[in-house]
């Protein structure tokens, strides 16, 4: 089975991760723009970060046979530095139309401050004007009302629900997200957010329509193999293969594929011109042979580690 991890911060990960992900069947990833664990102090470091997402990281992923896409936006935490926020909102349009940018994201609320609200609305307007999708980060604290507010404001700003991916859902938020016609993504996280046992129950209860999962792996304790591991667990617990495929691959493609920037043919039958730009080179391999088609097998046991 092929997998897509539609939310993973690869620039915080190692080449070992890329190798294991490719070996486990992950063919494409989406890296949302977010913060670095500490706030940036100026727009310059934001420019370098966003350039990294559309440039080097995209190239780096391709070295391992993984297609890399990204979402571009000002995250809610850094939206609270108003001078930074203003400067970043000004340069964002220069990135939104780059190749492989599948949505404006991850945007939304953290503390739900007025500054976060202003930045969120400004970016929803960009998405509307440029006919782009939106990827929403729902807050960790006061989650349910923050999620509802995120959807209300998106609709108020004129963005259609089927163009919006609401991420980091849980059992408390999923019903309303689906009922209102939004896409519902779940983050499998070792310690917070969803555990993968809980995800099996969600799949049993809600089926597979407009639902998909991601790892949100970053610089914290997190697991870049969360999607394939959860797929395995779902199969073991009797979820149908079709549902597992939808939740771990197809639905993310359907949702983000609406951008026109992400197509199955990119990894099933890459164009020669793409291969020239992306599927070439060995600069991260430091003298080893590129392993585009030939990846090492991950150890037997690591597939079987179930996230508690």
């Amino acid at each position, binding site marked *: 089975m092929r997998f897509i991890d539609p939310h993973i911060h690869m620039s915080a990960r190692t080449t070992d991760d890329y190798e294991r992900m490719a070996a486990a069947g992950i063919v494409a990833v989406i890296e949302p723009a977010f913060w670095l664990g500490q706030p940036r102090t100026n727009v310059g470091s934001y420019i370098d970060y966003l350039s990294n997402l559309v440039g080097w990281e995209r190239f780096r992923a391709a070295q391992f046979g993984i297609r890399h896409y990204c979402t571009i936006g000002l995250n809610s935490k850094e939206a609270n530095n108003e001078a930074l926020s203003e400067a970043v909102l000004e340069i964002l349009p*220069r990135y939104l139309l780059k190749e492989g940018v599948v949505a404006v994201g991850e945007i939304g609320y953290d503390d739900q401050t007025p500054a976060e609200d202003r930045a969120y609305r400004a970016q929803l307007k960009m998405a509307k004007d440029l006919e782009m999708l939106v990827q929403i980060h729902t807050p960790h604290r006061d989650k349910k009302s923050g999620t509802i507010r995120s959807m209300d404001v998106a609709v108020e700003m004129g963005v259609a629900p089927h163009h919006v991916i609401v991420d980091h859902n849980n059992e408390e938020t999923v019903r309303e997200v689906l009922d209102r016609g939004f896409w519902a993504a779940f983050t499998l996280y070792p310690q917070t957010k969803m555990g993968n046992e809980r995800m099996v129950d969600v799949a049993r209860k809600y089926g597979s329509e407009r639902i998909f999962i991601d790892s949100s792996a970053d610089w914290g304790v997190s697991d870049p193999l969360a999607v394939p591991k959860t797929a395995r667990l779902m199969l073991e617990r009797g979820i149908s293969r079709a549902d597992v495929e939808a939740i771990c691959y197809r639905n993310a493609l359907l949702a983000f594929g609406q951008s026109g920037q992400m197509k199955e043919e990119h990894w099933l039958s890459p164009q*020669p011109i793409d291969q020239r730009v992306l599927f070439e080179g060995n600069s991260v391999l430091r003298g080893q042979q590129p392993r585009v088609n030939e990846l090492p097998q991950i150890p037997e046991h690591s597939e079987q580690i179930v996230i508690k």
Partner: protein
Amino acid sequence: MTPLQVLESWLRARLPAPAFAWLQEQAAILSVHSGDARLYMAVSLVARKIGKDDLNATPEERSAADQVRRGWDPTDWSLDQAARIHLLLAGGGDGARFSHRLDQLCATADIGELVAFYRGLPLYPDPPRHAERAAEGVRSNMRAVFQAVAHRNPYPSEQLPEGAWNQMVLKALFVGVRLDPIVGLDTRANPALARMLTDYAHERWAASRTISPELWRCVGPFATGGMLDDLKRVLTTGTDNERAAAALALTSANNPDAVALLKAHPVLVKSIAEGTLTWRSLAQAI
């Protein structure tokens, strides 16, 4: 014809009418408006509006390009690259302004855009001004970006100072890309580069790693003393391609000791004399 007109004629012949109309409209706006933001947006939109098919320039078009701008070689170009360079040129501006815009564009470029901007180097106004930009492209870790400067591009041989030029040739070997498509490879060969390349060969030998036969191309013309010993070693113990490369290098050495070394290898000498063994044929064989 100007490069701008040549690019326009290529695109007119290939694009569907709506895509070409969009491009012309953008070019017209850019030629009268001075706002940079408009240029940045138009250049980014090219991939979506024009697509990324190969340009597939005909032999006639390639020779026309070379006449308009000596050394301009659009082999391997794609439509989005031609269109992006077209828009950049349509935006006009003197050297300082052009260079400022190019810096801004490169600062926020994706990979496809970087390849286009670097391929366009020989067509930009005030050529000496872009040498540091070219050197920056050579420093890129993204191989396609490096190749956009190094391969089939006359700009580096015309404008890069010796240090940057030598880094480019050495890096090509280091990242495993061919030397043969580098324009001006033989005319810009120099003793410092020959020394760097033989040092690199010794490093590789010490680590029991292979060496591209093309390395010896820039060593040959300056080979004396220890370098001749190296070439002798390659000529007697190398693979077929390495032996061919050593023979080609010794032929270019123009040195009696080199001629003496070649005496024992009449078959190679004959192939070189008849033109069946050249650096190009060797590059294609490896």
